[in-house]
C-alpha cells in the first residue's frame, strides 16, 4: 500500500489529506503537525477568536473523529526536522522516521518576528496560542499600538477597538492599503480606522520599543513616543522552509514548484499553501500566495495530481482574499498590482458603504476587483476574471448589479 505523508496540519495540510480521500486515494494518509492540539483555522485568530465571539473548539479544522472516519492518521506534536528526498524518508523532532511514497509540504508561514526585543507585552498573531495571549492582554485594557497597517494589523486594530481599547496603528507607508489598491481606494481604508476612533500614524516608522507589558514605549521616527500597555507587530510572514535546508529541494522564499505544484527536480514531493512558490502559467512567473482560499484550492489540486499522476493539472488560480474590519466586509480578487486604471462603483465610505473598485491592465482586461459589503459583485468579478473579460464589459456588468440593488427596497444606495 502506498503512503502519502502530509507535513503541516493547518488548512493546506488538512484539506490535502481530506481531498486525497475525496479523490478516491486508498493508500495510507499521515498528517504530521508541529503543534500538539487539534488542527485549527487561522482567519478567526485576528477576528472572532480574538474578540471572544468564537471559542477554540469552534476554530477546529479536523477533529480526531473526522480524521478517523477519513482514515487520516494524525501525527501531531512533533515537528518535521529533515526530509531525505532520495530515500523517501521524513524524520521528526522526536526521532521517529516515516517512509513515504508521496510527500506534501504544507508547513505554511510564521509571523515575521518583531525586531524589538522586549520581555513582555509585545505580540505577533499567527498561532492559536499567540491569539489567546494577545486576547488576555487586550482584556486588561489599552492603550494598544499596532505596528503594521496591512490585513492582520487592521483586523487586530478593529478587534481591539471593539474590546474597548484605545488603539493607534503605525505604518511607514503613507497609505498602507494603497500599496495593494492604489492611493485613492487605500485612503478609504485609512478613513475606516479613523471613523471608528482608531488613530493612525501612517508615513511614520518605529525606531524602538522598550519597557514591559503595561508600560511599553513605542518611539517613532518622527521623534514622538507612544505609551502602550500592549504592542502588536503585524509586519508580514516568512515561509516555514528552513527545516528543508539540507534536503536538496530548491528553496527561494518558499518551496519552488512547477505548474503542477511539484517541487522542482522531484516527482513525488508536492507543496501547497503559504509555503509553496509555484510557477503560475497565467502569470508566467513563480508566485507565493498567503491567502486561505489559495491554500484550500491548491490542496485540492495537489490531491488530484497525486491521485491521477498520468493527467497532472496545472494550477492557475485567480487570487482571492477577504478581510473583516470594523463594519466592513472586504473582498479582493485578482492582481491589483498589474493595474493601469481603475474605476470606483458605488460608495466606499461610511458604515453603509456598499461598493467596489474595478482594476484594468494595459491589455484592456479586468485584472482585479475589490468590494466592500458587496459579495454579489465580487462573485461576478471572480467569474469575469476567470473568463479574462474586458474591463469595459466588467464595468458594465457591475454597474448593472448596482442599479439592480438600488431598485430594491432596503438597498443601501
Amino acid at each position: 500500500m502506498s503512503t502519502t505523508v502530509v507535513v503541516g496540519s493547518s488548512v493546506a495540510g488538512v484539506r490535502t489529506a481530506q481531498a486525497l480521500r475525496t479523490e478516491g486515494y486508498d493508500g495510507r494518509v499521515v498528517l504530521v503537525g508541529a503543534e500538539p492540539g487539534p488542527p485549527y483555522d487561522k482567519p478567526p485568530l485576528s477576528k472572532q477568536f480574538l474578540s471572544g465571539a468564537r471559542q477554540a473548539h469552534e476554530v477546529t479544522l479536523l477533529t480526531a473523529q473526522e480524521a478517523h472516519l477519513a482514515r487520516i492518521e494524525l501525527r501531531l506534536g512533533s515537528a518535521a526536522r529533515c526530509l531525505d528526498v532520495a530515500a523517501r524518508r521524513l524524520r521528526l523532532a522526536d526521532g521517529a522516521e516515516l517512509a513515504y511514497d508521496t510527500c506534501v509540504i504544507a508547513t505554511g508561514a510564521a509571523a515575521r518576528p518583531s525586531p524589538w526585543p522586549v520581555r513582555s507585552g509585545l505580540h505577533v498573531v499567527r498561532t492559536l496560542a499567540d491569539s489567546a495571549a494577545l486576547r488576555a492582554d487586550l482584556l486588561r485594557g489599552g492603550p494598544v499600538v499596532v505596528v503594521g497597517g496591512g490585513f492582520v494589523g487592521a483586523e487586530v486594530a478593529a478587534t481591539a477597538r471593539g474590546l474597548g481599547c484605545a488603539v493607534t496603528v503605525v505604518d511607514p507607508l503613507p497609505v498602507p492599503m494603497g500599496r495593494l489598491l492604489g492611493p485613492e481606494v487605500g485612503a478609504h481604508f485609512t478613513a475606516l480606522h479613523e471613523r471608528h476612533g482608531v488613530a493612525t500614524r501612517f508615513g511614520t516608522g518605529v525606531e524602538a520599543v522598550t519597557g514591559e507589558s503595561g508600560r511599553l514605549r513605542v518611539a517613532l521616527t518622527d521623534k514622538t513616543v507612544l505609551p502602550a500597555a500592549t504592542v502588536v507587530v503585524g509586519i508580514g510572514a516568512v515561509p516555514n522552509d528552513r527545516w528543508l535546508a539540507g534536503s536538496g529541494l530548491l528553496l527561494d522564499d518558499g518551496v519552488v514548484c512547477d505548474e503542477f505544484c511539484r517541487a522542482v527536480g522531484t516527482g513525488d514531493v508536492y507543496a501547497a499553501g503559504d509555503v509553496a512558490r509555484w510557477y503560475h502559467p497565467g502569470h508566467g512567473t513563480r508566485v507565493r500566495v498567503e491567502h486561505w482560499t489559495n491554500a484550500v484550492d491548491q490542496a485540492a489540486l495537489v490531491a488530484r495530481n497525486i491521485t491521477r499522476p498520468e493527467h497532472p493539472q496545472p494550477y492557475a488560480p485567480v487570487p482571492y482574499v477577504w478581510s473583516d474590519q470594523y463594519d466592513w466586509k472586504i473582498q479582493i480578487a485578482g492582481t491589483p498590482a498589474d493595474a493601469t486604471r481603475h474605476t470606483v462603483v458605488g460608495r466606499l465610505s461610511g458604515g453603509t458603504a456598499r461598493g467596489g473598485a474595478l482594476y484594468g491592465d494595459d491589455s484592456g482586461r479586468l485584472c482585479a476587483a475589490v468590494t466592500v459589503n458587496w459579495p454579489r459583485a465580487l462573485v461576478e468579478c471572480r467569474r469575469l476574471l476567470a473568463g479574462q473579460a474586458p474591463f469595459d464589459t466588467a464595468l458594465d456588468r457591475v454597474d448593472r448589479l448596482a442599479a439592480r440593488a438600488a431598485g430594491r427596497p432596503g438597498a443601501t444606495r
Partner: protein
Amino acid sequence: MPVLKADFGACQGYANCVAGAPDAYDIDDDGTVVLLKERIGAEDLPRLQEAARSCPVSALTIEDA
C-alpha cells in the same frame, strides 16, 4: 442520493463555493448563498464535497438521504 444543505445564518458571502461549483451554489444580492439544486448525482459528489469544504465558515454540508 446526496442532498445539499446550507446554514444560511452562518454564511458570510465569501463565495468560495460559487467559484468551486457554480452549477450548485450561487449568491444573492444580500450576499447569502443560494442552493441551485438540492439533490445531486453520485458522480458530482467529489467535486461538490470539495466546493463545500472551501467554505471558510463551514456553512455547507452534503448529507446522505
